[in-house]
């Protein structure tokens, strides 16, 4: 939401204002605001490492094997620096490699709070050792540790899937003493010892290190610039601890496609970075971001999926510092270890993707996941960072936002217009202008004199409100939050240990240090109804600008030498900062409800694990067809990285969409997990009723379709919250052997049962759709026409048509009585659409709970499993637990692909005699509609089809 941010300024900032206007006036992103690899000294250093000359050897006599874990030291032959490493085989097809400094001069930051628990180690691991290395055998997998140089290879079913340091790009910059440059010294012979003495006298509390080591490192590295200080534009990074980057290469033999590492506005299948910049992970507020490039955006998840028809593996680089990733396509022969040479026989041209990861600080802590299929990797990853939380039902319904709805009358009017036009919505959003002078947790008392009444009148119709609460706090001694944060020392400090100040929406601001768990608790308690005047239990929260965005900071973010809790520099924790703010806010909402209600918090910044705290969106996009199109791969990439609850601003944040674009955007977003319309303050209003009537009707249909499918979405969210995994899915994740799907991102699946092809081109009159799966049947959900996969079909798509297909073999639950909002549909009956496969079978699930509380975790839920088989549709429990009762009943069954008309259909329940049902059969479309089975949806029942 960055732009026009200088509404009230003091004179000191006029110059900045002028600069800002110049920036804003530029069309699209101002790239010069953001670093390229060349502007980042550690990126350059790591990129310049020559392959195949790794100085890192495993120290022979340091190796110890305990069960599934090997511990060993690694020595850098160039400077004798020692590293302590462990590699462990974990349960369910995972492994972990950790490399730290053996005797660090300063502590190195290790990411906390991201793993949901310490991962379980694998059992039954067998170790073999020879003079070249160690081999661990576990289940159908092998880990081979080679000693000189250090290298690890993983094999699954005797096929090499991951090689670590096979290109020898590993780099671990030990903390060191600053080497005094030669020209500052008068005596040649004594310069080194003087320099060392000087530094050590300044840093007495630092553990002693080998002075010779420091010298050697110093002499070699001092030639490189930027080790001890670097500047970018007018910003200087004092780098008090000097260089500290860590890097390692990973190769994926046999693989031509890698995915993930969001957030980038780029294709789903990642591109080779040779010749350009690496993909960058550094949470940044990028004004009017461009598409199709590897620039960093608002969030960072260092998770990558490597996939080919035979195997799928995952890699999670657990590091919260700035990270760059190089990707290159190669041939495998160059890096295959000689002992695997036999694997290449007759296949010398095996493709391979090489990746090279490096972060500015922290340790090497990397997880490997061995699949064997994409959905297995997603589960393995979820076992580390956690599955998505189960959002309250309203959160996956439609959200109406704008910067800004101006006052209570505006809110009342927008709310009533939805009803007037019979368009459902669940949540109305208030952006920053609702506050008193951008002081979060306050209200502009003129525009919003009665915020509680306003929320209550929405709540009377089952609707919610969201207000924005950003992590920057206005410096204003009359503002309680600032007073408390100031007096209680809760702000991030600058390099000189004073409170860090920067510019954001309110003008001069400081940032709560969310790295400190006590500050997070304090922040969470701000959301108590008593502490947030004018809030009610139907108010939820939006955390924007939590990268953090600092208007006058380097790259519009915080200085890397700013100081956090525990003495950590901002450089160590940058990418996790936003997650902690998100988490603290979500915890606050939970505590507000007495730990009864599920929270809803939208965040712009994210990191691995953010899926446990709420939704994210793709930030400040633009009203253009390109941005609509890119929303698909962006959301899918984020989804692949374990964060399924993602969306893009409907209509585009910046600029004004024309009606066709807005209509197509609604159609697309109604099939994306987080569904919110939002717009910049400078745009024209674009609420659905402002469209021409015909277009408004299409938008209404799109939103209503979403509401009808809420039970389906909610069930998918439940499944993902239990096992992890995606909700909207690239085709290759469900059809992993179908090579033609590997780079496909213009269509996708919701769960595994609905295939969606959004229309993202202007004036499109037809589109082609690929329908995957051998002998898979696909039914158009509008006209029930069916097609057999795998094949491409062409379909005409007038403005009211968005192609959606239901997979044969699936059962999709819907609630077809669309009310004003989702909670009003609570007791409504269900319709089941049974799409038969070639064997006339189908399977589906339905999850039900109260839609808002944590009671489901105590068994207050019902998971139903519907099966159609042998001409019987039956409802059985889908899990051993769950005893939720509902008034909802089954009003209709639609069976697709029914070749013959039944002679009789009857329903029988647990304690009732069979009852005959009315039905209609449409022979042409092979569609059977069964009227009112009238069984309770959570009961066990059977419906028999007689022919």
């Amino acid at each position, binding site marked *: 939401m960055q732009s026009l941010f200088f509404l009230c300024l003091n004179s000191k900032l006029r110059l900045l204002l002028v600069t800002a206007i110049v920036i*804003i*006036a530029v069309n699209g992103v101002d790239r010069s605001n953001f670093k390229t690899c060349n502007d980042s000294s550690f990126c350059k250093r790591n990129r310049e490492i020559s392959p195949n000359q790794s100085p890192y050897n495993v120290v022979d006599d340091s190796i110890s094997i305990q069960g599934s874990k090997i511990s060993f030291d690694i020595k850098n032959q160039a400077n004798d620096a020692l590293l302590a490493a462990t590699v462990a085989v974990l349960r369910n097809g995972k492994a972990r490699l950790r490399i730290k400094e053996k005797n660090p001069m300063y502590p190195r930051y290790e990411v906390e709070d991201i793993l949901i628990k310490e991962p379980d180690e694998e059992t039954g691991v067998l170790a073999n050792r020879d003079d070249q290395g160690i081999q661990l055998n576990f289940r159908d997998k092998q880990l081979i540790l080679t000693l000189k140089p250090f290298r690890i290879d993983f094999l699954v079913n005797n096929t090499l899937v991951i090689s670590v340091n096979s290109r020898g790009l590993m780099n671990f910059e030990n903390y060191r003493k600053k080497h005094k440059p030669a020209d500052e010294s008068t005596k040649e012979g004594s310069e080194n010892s003087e320099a060392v003495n000087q530094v050590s006298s300044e840093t007495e509390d630092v553990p002693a290190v080998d002075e010779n080591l420091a010298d050697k490192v110093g002499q070699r590295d001092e030639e490189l610039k930027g080790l001890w200080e670097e500047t970018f534009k007018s910003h200087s990074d004092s780098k008090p601890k000097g260089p500290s980057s860590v890097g390692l290469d990973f190769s994926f033999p046999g693989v031509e496609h890698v995915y993930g590492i969001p957030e980038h506005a780029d294709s789903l299948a990642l591109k080779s970075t040779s010749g350009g910049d690496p993909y960058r992970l550094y949470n940044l507020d990028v004004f009017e971001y461009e598409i199709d490039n590897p620039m960093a955006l608002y969030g960072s998840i260092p998770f990558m999926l490597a996939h080919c028809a035979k195997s799928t593996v995952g890699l999670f680089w657990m590091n919260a510092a700035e990270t760059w990733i190089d990707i290159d396509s190669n041939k495998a022969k160059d890096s295959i270890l000689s002992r695997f040479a036999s694997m290449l026989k007759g296949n010398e041209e095996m493709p391979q993707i090489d990746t090279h990861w490096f972060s500015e600080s922290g340790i090497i802590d990397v997880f490997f996941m061995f699949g064997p299929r994409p959905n297995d990797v997603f589960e393995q990853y979820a076992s580390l960072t956690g599955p998505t939380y189960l959002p309250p039902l309203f959160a996956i319904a439609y959200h109406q936002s704008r910067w800004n709805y*101006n006052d209570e009358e*505006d809110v009342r009017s927008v709310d009533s217009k939805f009803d007037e036009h*019979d368009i459902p919505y669940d949540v109305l959003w208030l952006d920053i202008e609702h506050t008193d002078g951008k002081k979060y947790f306050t209200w502009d008392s*003129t525009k919003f004199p009665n915020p509680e009444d306003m929320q209550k009148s929405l709540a*009377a*119709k*089952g609707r919610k409100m969201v207000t924005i609460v950003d992590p920057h706090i206005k410096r204003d001694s009359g503002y309680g939050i600032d007073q408390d944060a100031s007096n209680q020392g809760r702000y991030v400090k600058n390099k000189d240990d004073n409170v860090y100040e920067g510019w954001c929406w309110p003008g001069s601001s400081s940032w709560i240090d969310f790295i400190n768990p006590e500050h997070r608790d304090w922040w969470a308690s701000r959301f108590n109804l008593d502490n947030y005047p004018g809030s009610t239990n139907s108010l939820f929260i939006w955390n924007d600008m939590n990268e953090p965005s600092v208007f006058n900071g380097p790259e519009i973010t915080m200085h890397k030498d700013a100081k956090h809790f525990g003495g950590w520099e901002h450089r160590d924790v940058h990418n996790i900062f936003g997650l902690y703010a998100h988490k603290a806010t979500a915890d606050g909402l939970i505590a507000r409800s007495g730990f009864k209600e599920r929270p809803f918090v939208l965040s712009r910044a994210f990191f691995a694990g953010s899926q446990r705290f709420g939704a994210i969106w793709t930030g400040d996009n633009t009203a253009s067809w390109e941005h609509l199109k890119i929303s698909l791969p962006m959301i899918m990439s984020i989804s692949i990285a374990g964060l399924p609850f993602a969306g893009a601003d409907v209509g585009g944040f910046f600029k004004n969409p024309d009606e066709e674009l807005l209509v197509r955007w609604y159609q697309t977003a109604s099939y994306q997990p987080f569904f919110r319309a939002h717009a910049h*303050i*400078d*745009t*024209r*209003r674009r609420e659905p009723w402002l469209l021409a009537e015909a277009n408004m009707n299409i938008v209404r249909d799109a939103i*209503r379709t979403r509401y009808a499918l809420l039970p389906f979405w909610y069930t998918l969210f439940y499944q993902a919250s239990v096992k992890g995994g995606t909700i909207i899915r690239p085709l290759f994740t469900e059809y992993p052997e179908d090579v033609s799907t590997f780079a496909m991102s213009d269509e996708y699946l919701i769960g595994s049962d609905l295939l969606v092809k959004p229309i993202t081109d202007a004036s499109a009159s037809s589109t082609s759709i690929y329908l995957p799966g051998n002998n898979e049947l696909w039914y158009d959900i509008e006209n029930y026409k069916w097609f057999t996969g795998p094949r491409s079909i062409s379909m005409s798509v007038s403005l009211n048509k968005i192609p959606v297909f239901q997979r044969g073999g699936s059962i999709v639950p819907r609630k*077809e*009585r*669309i*009310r*004003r909002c989702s909670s*009003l*549909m609570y*007791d*409504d009956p269900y319709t089941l659409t049974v799409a038969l496969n070639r064997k006339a079978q189908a399977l589906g699930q339905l999850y039900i709970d109260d839609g808002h509380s944590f009671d489901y975790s105590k068994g207050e839920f019902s998971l139903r499993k519907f099966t159609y088989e042998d001409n019987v549709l039956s409802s059985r429990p889908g899990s051993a637990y769950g005893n939720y009762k509902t*008034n909802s*009943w089954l*009003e*209709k069954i639609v069976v697709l692909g029914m070749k013959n008309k039944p002679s009789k259909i009857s329903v029988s329940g647990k304690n009732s005699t069979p009852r005959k049902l009315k039905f209609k059969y449409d022979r042409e479309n092979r569609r059977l509609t069964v*009227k*009112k089975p*009238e069984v*309770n949806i959570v009961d066990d029942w059977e419906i028999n089809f007689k022919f």
Partner: protein
Amino acid sequence: MTAQKYLWFTLTCLFYTSLLASIGYAGSGLPKGAQPSLASNYDSSRPFRCLNGLATIDFTSVNDNYCDCSDGSDEPGTSACPNGRFYCHNVGYKPLIFPSSRVNDGICDCCDGTDEYDGKISCQNTCDEVGAKYREELRKLQEEAEKGYVMRLQYAKEGLEAKEKYKAKLQSLKADIETVRQKASELEAKKSEAEKSEKERLDAFEKEWEETKAKKREEYYNSKSKSTFDELDSNKDGSITVNEIIGNLAFDADGNGEVSEEEAKQALGEAGIISSYDNFMSDVWPKFNDKLVQIKPQGLDSGERSMEQPADSHEVNIDDDIVAEDEDEAAKEHVAVAQEEDMYGQKPEHDEELKNLVAVADKARQEYKAAEDNKNNMENEIQEIEKVLGSDFGSEEEFAYLRGKCYQFTDREYTYELCPFDKVTQTSKSGGSQTSLGTWGSWVGAENKYSKMKYEGGQNCWNGPDRSATIVISCGTEDSLISASEPNRCEYLMEFKTPAACFSRGNKNSHDEL
């Protein structure tokens, strides 16, 4: 009703549906939620034909909580059809029709409570209360509308009268304008002729005076040459040297305020000396006589003044500087005029003939100007009247009286001003200049074009459009601007009440629905 309602409360959702078909409106046989105007379609003794004619179903399927008709007509009383419409009678208030998805959703939408009957919520019948309130409001509105309507008639009458007056006025102006134009052009010719004679004689007079002046000037300079030589020859040795003239600004060729040695030598020749009065007269006097005669008195003065200026100061107030220079110029001018009189004597008066010619020309000019002003005024008036007559002040000229008036509305930050048919402006309460939100564009109401005014082409928004304002006009007994907002950036929306918009009689409003 009460008994039936009680019954509904006791039913569970699974059982009530089959009973619904028999439950209609107050026993009339009309199915629940159906519109009375469609009653004939719902005949329980026959199968039900969907209103769109696409299907026919058993009457027991009407309101059985399952959607059979694609137009939703079989389920007016349940939420089963996505496109169903529910009708509540709301006896005591007015009937309401809304999407049947609002039936049994836990919100009381009908004041008679008939939309909620599954027991989830108990809706009181508030129609009498709501109806009374509504009737009172309606009565007030009607009163206002009636009063406004009468006022509107008056405004329309006045507007039409004014229009007629304008038309008449225009006619008379147009009738007169040609004569006036004719007269003006005649007087212009007369003026030109007089001015021609005047100019000839005046030019001759001036020419004569210039010649006299040139002669006098030469005499004057000659009379000054010897005394100037003597003054320059300060040591009275009969010759003039560089030292003697170095302080005399007449020799300051580059005008920098001092006479350099080079400048002096340039004046006196390479030798730097003029050895006699004759040499002075031949070499120096012709080149410098102007300056020597004129500059002498103030040369020193000006030099002193410039010495007082602080050479290195950056804090000189630029305005002061300019003032100082202006003063210098004025002083020089004053001296020059004095010198001229000294040289030429008084300029002679015009002779009688010339005076006469000037007087004749002055008179012709005055007469022409009066005629031209009169013509211009009339033309402006015609233009103005044509503009007014070309404007759309409503079908009966009822809005005409608003022209030339302005109305204000003040909110927390701004004062907005609407001057109908002219402009809309905004002024910040904390001061600052007026911002134009647009000038009169056109009527833009959709059904009734006189329900909305559009003002366009206001001050441009930075990085955005020109400001514009839409004024929504509604009936009221007073002219007043009652709200102003900015729903889109730089697009303003205001509400204006005026009797001119009271288009219909109060008592004609829908009384019958009560």
